């Protein structure tokens, strides 16, 4: 079965720098990968998804890439701000069900 792995549990960066998060998958290439943000005590919020045939997708300061050769998606937060501090979850969809990675907690220092 498909497995989603997010390599880093935590990422600490300086304000203004770019945060890069990694999501790896095993087995077959998923049709798309989704990225969510979760703040403490809140439910996840959908941010972006990227399809298998898309190399890159952007939304404001966020950028997602999909490399089917490396079986990997990268999630970038450019010009990071303290307000970007949160846990970011990668997920893939199997039919209608989502399977989530463990998440990466990003802390942006002012």
């Amino acid at each position, binding site marked *: 079965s498909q497995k989603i792995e997010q390599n880093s549990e935590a990422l600490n960066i300086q304000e203004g720098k770019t945060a890069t998060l990694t999501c790896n998958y095993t087995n077959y290439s998923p*049709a*798309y990968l*989704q990225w969510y943000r979760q703040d403490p*005590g*809140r*439910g*996840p*919020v*959908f941010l972006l*998804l990227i*399809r298998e045939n898309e190399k890159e997708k952007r939304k404001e300061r966020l950028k997602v890439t999909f490399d089917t050769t490396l079986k990997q998606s990268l999630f970038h937060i450019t010009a990071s701000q303290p307000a970007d501090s949160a846990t970011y*979850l990668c997920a893939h*969809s199997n039919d*209608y*069900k*989502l*399977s*989530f*990675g*463990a*998440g990466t907690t990003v802390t942006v220092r002012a």
Partner: protein
Amino acid sequence: SAVISQKPSRDICQRGTSLTIQCQVDSQVTMMFWYRQQPGQSLTLIATANQGSEATYESGFVIDKFPISRPNLTFSTLTVSNMSPEDSSIYLCSVEGGLEGANEQFFGPGTRLTVL
């Protein structure tokens, strides 16, 4: 996008008791999903609830422990039965939606359950 509310937002319960969590959506949806998020962990799907049919449970979750109701297209309940401290988790409901048509989900705020 859908707006989802959950009740209660948190509760502290004694072992052996049961708690019913409510999930209300502001629009009609076909499928609703229930997840568990144990402390420091990611989300695990418990079951999928369709209106008018039995919920579909994931491996490791059973109806006797987590009975689900789905009486209409905007509401669902999840009961955590005969609770033990291992059931202490955040329970979240979600629905599909979004413009991409790729199973993006909207989540409720969660119910934080502590079992003593």
